[in-house]
């Protein structure tokens, strides 16, 4: 079977988002937009110490407050089971004991008739603590260290010997601050019980997992729980875990026997749904005089909460970034009394790339070489760690196209040598890779008697464009107009879906959608197999193609039959087929699975008198394999770039060193980029369809953030001669 891709060119086109009209009219319904008759509201009480035990909880005043229905604490909460791991440990269920492990941990939930009453009463819960000395600093000798937490550490060749004998050596330490995902949508849960059936509206990126998790917490059969999330107000990784507040909303609803809505406050978003960890990283490089890397060591230490895991491999990308024979990469974690560490757009890579690509820039200056040339000279054609060819890699083209578009050749090498009026100008570049990731996924395709199709999978569209690109892909696979295809998601009752995470969703669900659509065409061929009146009688899937709402013979395109006609002729109301995808095996496929690659070029302008720094323009050239929708893919890269500018120049979670309290947990204090911070951005895609999945895509959700930190820091050095090895780069570091 072939598709009509070449003729319609539907996939790839920058069509408008199919959910656009709903979003611009306020009609798209996010979890906290749902209401029910007799809805009650919950508000949370959080611990005011980072370590220790609750010594006294007095809920009488709260209970006596107007409208209050219940106050649940560890003293009266029923036993909840631990949610299953998703590959990562789930946070423990809340209110099960008196132990406190971070400032902001939930100690009570108050349920009332209105949100105002719940909020007011929550302030009346009196908690006293038997505090312990919290561990808040990675240098604290009491802290527990974890080496090689995920088995990703790597070693090849003889690093020590190569470093010792290298003609040029460079070593430096880099740090990055903790960042907050801070999606605009306050994470919210609306929980509704009907007997032992539980429906949850939630801000999740992974409804199939959340259903399993909540079912286990409440000891229910999985089929009793339904998770709904047709729209999610951003998440950037924060929606990948089954957070305690979700369990509390369900518990509150069961306790009061009414539907309950729980909307986290903005300050609670900083402690309750994870954050990107800070990092301390050391990079050692050894090179020949002519710029060939002979040694590369990258070691990272990141904080971790007191219990549970987080996958944050800051150094793993360095093992395969460059063709270098002697390499060591090491990650360590240190347990602290801090809120949960979790995925945030480009976990690990965001921090790790800053260190590696800053160090490469510094080495280029040591060598007196163009930083771009140094990267090209050490380009790895194959994956040097797996010693397999990449499933696709057009990073060289990214550099070349990017340099051309940016005007890299106009750069004069000497720091501080480029000016425009009062401004110092700096050019910076960074090379970027993002790791490959894919999960199993299922989908179902259905054709109805009116000739329209609906394709379904329990995945999410957190703003990435899944609704739109899967509609395009389904339409292509079935030979239908986009207007005749609906893609449904955001409901755990649909076929089990992969997480919107790890930049792996489009490959996972796209492959499942392709399979389901192909199986659906097969089902139509089965239907007409013995039908002498059908021009498709006896055709195999490889003998037909689709287009214009019909299946036709490849050898005789005029011989075909419309889906609707087949259904009508055989008295069938609708026909469905399932499809699934599982990740390929690199060894079987004989190739190293590639994530996206990119080259980032940044111009900064620095006013040396005032210390003001501005990113003036960004050129990003990305190899993300096949692009399903140029418009939404470009938006993903631009959005990631905005996140990168935030990480590079603004964002830092400040933890009070005495108490472990997050001291800047509001948008007034934790600064994220605003419109005026963002310059003109140019995005271009290069490369070919990837060979590792049937859709040919490599995810675009995270690559856009990676490399911006290093490119900005490198540009700052070029502008000012000052090397900043710590993010965010703030005015006091410049002068």
């Amino acid at each position, binding site marked *: 079977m072939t598709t009509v891709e070449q003729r319609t060119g539907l996939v790839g086109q920058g069509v408008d988002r199919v959910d656009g009209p709903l979003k611009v*009219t306020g009609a798209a319904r996010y979890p906290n937009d749902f209401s029910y008759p007799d809805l009650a509201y919950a508000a949370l009480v959080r611990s005011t110490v980072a370590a220790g035990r609750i010594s006294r909880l007095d809920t009488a005043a709260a209970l006596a407050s*107007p409208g209050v229905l219940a106050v649940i604490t560890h003293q009266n909460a029923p036993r909840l089971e631990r949610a299953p791991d998703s590959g990562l440990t789930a946070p423990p269920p809340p209110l099960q004991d008196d132990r406190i492990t971070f400032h902001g941990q939930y100690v009570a939930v108050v349920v009332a008739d209105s949100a*105002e009453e719940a909020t007011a009463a929550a302030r009346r819960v009196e908690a006293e603590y038997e505090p312990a000395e919290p561990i808040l600093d990675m240098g604290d000798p009491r802290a527990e260290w974890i080496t090689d937490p995920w088995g990703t550490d790597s070693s090849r060749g003889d690093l020590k010997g190569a470093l010792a004998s290298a003609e040029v050596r460079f070593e430096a330490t880099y740090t990055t601050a903790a960042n907050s995902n801070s999606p605009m949508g306050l994470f919210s849960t609306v929980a509704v019980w009907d007997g032992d059936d539980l429906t949850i509206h939630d801000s999740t990126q992974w409804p199939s997992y959340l259903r399993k998790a909540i079912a286990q917490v409440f000891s229910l059969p999985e089929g009793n729980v339904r998770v709904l999330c047709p729209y999610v107000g951003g998440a950037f990784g924060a929606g990948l875990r089954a957070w305690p507040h979700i369990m509390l909303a369900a518990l509150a609803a069961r306790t009061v026997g009414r539907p309950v809505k729980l909307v986290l406050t903005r300050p609670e978003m900083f402690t309750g749904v994870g954050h990107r960890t800070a990092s301390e990283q050391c990079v050692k490089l050894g090179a020949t005089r002519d710029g060939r890397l002979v040694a590369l060591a990258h070691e990272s230490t990141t904080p971790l909460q007191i219990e549970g895991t987080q996958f944050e491999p800051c150094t793993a990308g360095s093992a395969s970034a460059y063709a270098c024979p002697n390499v060591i990469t090491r990650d360590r974690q240190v347990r602290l009394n801090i809120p949960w560490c979790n995925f945030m757009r480009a976990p690990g890579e965001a921090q790790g790339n800053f260190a590696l690509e800053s160090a490469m820039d510094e080495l280029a200056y040591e060598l007196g070489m163009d930083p771009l040339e140094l990267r090209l000279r050490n380009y790895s054609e194959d994956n040097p760690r797996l010693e397999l060819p990449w499933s696709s890699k057009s990073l060289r083209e990214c550099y070349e196209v990017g340099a051309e578009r940016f005007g890299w050749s106009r750069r004069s090498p000497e720091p501080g040598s480029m000016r425009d009026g009062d401004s110092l100008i700096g050019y910076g570049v960074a090379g970027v890779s993002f790791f490959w990731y894919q999960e199993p996924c299922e989908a179902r395709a259905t054709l109805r008697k009116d000739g329209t199709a609906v394709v379904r999978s329990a995945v999410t569209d957190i703003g990435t464009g899944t609704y739109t690109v899967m509609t395009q892909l389904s339409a292509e696979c079935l030979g239908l107009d986009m207007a005749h295809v609906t893609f449904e998601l955001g409901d755990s009752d649909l076929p089990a879906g992969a997480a919107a995470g790890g930049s792996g969703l489009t490959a996972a669900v796209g492959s499942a959608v392709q399979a389901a659509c192909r199986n659906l065409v097969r089902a139509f061929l089965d239907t007409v197999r013995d039908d002498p009146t059908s021009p498709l009688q006896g055709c195999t899937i490889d003998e037909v193609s689709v287009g214009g709402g019909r299946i036709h013979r490849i050898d005789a395109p005029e011989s075909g039959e419309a889906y609707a006609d087949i259904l009508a002729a055989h008295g069938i109301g609708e026909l469905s087929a399932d499809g699934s995808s599982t990740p390929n095996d690199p060894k079987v496929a004989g190739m190293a699975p590639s994530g996206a690659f990119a080259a980032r070029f940044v111009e900064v302008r620095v006013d040396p008198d005032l210390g003001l720094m501005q990113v003036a323009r960004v050129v990003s050239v990305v190899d993300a394999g096949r692009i399903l929708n140029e418009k939404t893919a470009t938006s993903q890269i631009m959005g990631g770039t905005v996140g990168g500018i935030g990480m590079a120049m603004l964002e830092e979670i400040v933890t009070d060193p005495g108490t472990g309290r997050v001291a800047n947990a509001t948008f007034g204090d934790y600064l994220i980029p605003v419109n005026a911070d963002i310059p003109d951005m140019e995005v271009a895609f290069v490369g070919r369809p990837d060979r590792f999945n049937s859709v040919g895509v490599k995810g675009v959700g995270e690559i856009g953030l990676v490399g911006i930190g290093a490119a900005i820091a490198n540009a700052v050095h070029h502008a000012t001669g000052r090397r900043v090895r710590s993010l965010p780069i703030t005015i006091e570091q410049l002068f």
Partner: protein
Amino acid sequence: MADDMTGGVPVATVARVGVTLTVNGADYRLDLDSRVTLLDALRDRLGMTGTKKGCDQGACGACTVMVDGKRVLSCLTLAAQCEGKDVTTIEGLAADGVLHAMQEAFVRHDAFQCGYCTSGQIMSAVCLLAEGRAGSDDAIRQFMSGNLCRCGAYGNIVAAIREVRDAGGHDA
């Protein structure tokens, strides 16, 4: 406001206020807890959930609505303050199912991703044009900086506003 005693613990009772809200041209008579914000009145009492709560602290702009023609943060406005004022929300922008020019431009330019800040961005953008502050890209960027977008659609938001401005604007 009086104190009553429940279980020996003093509890401040809650003042109720009667208010008539005029939203998108229709009057709604509400009996409200005096603490209810315009945002919560719209969302929880009137079921108009197009206006979003992003911070409830006046720092993100997601809750921007128009009150008497001016952009206002509905999370920092008590519903009781809006008696006799004209409130326009995102639900009131499209006329008879036809999208406002700004809504159309936002779709065409992909000026949103998750869509959560979008109602506030559009209300702000419509007011911006009425204020005459969209003369240049830099001006648009400055005067739209009260509306945060974490997905990072800023460039496309500027493009959408620029297009509507160049087409002669659209009187909200």
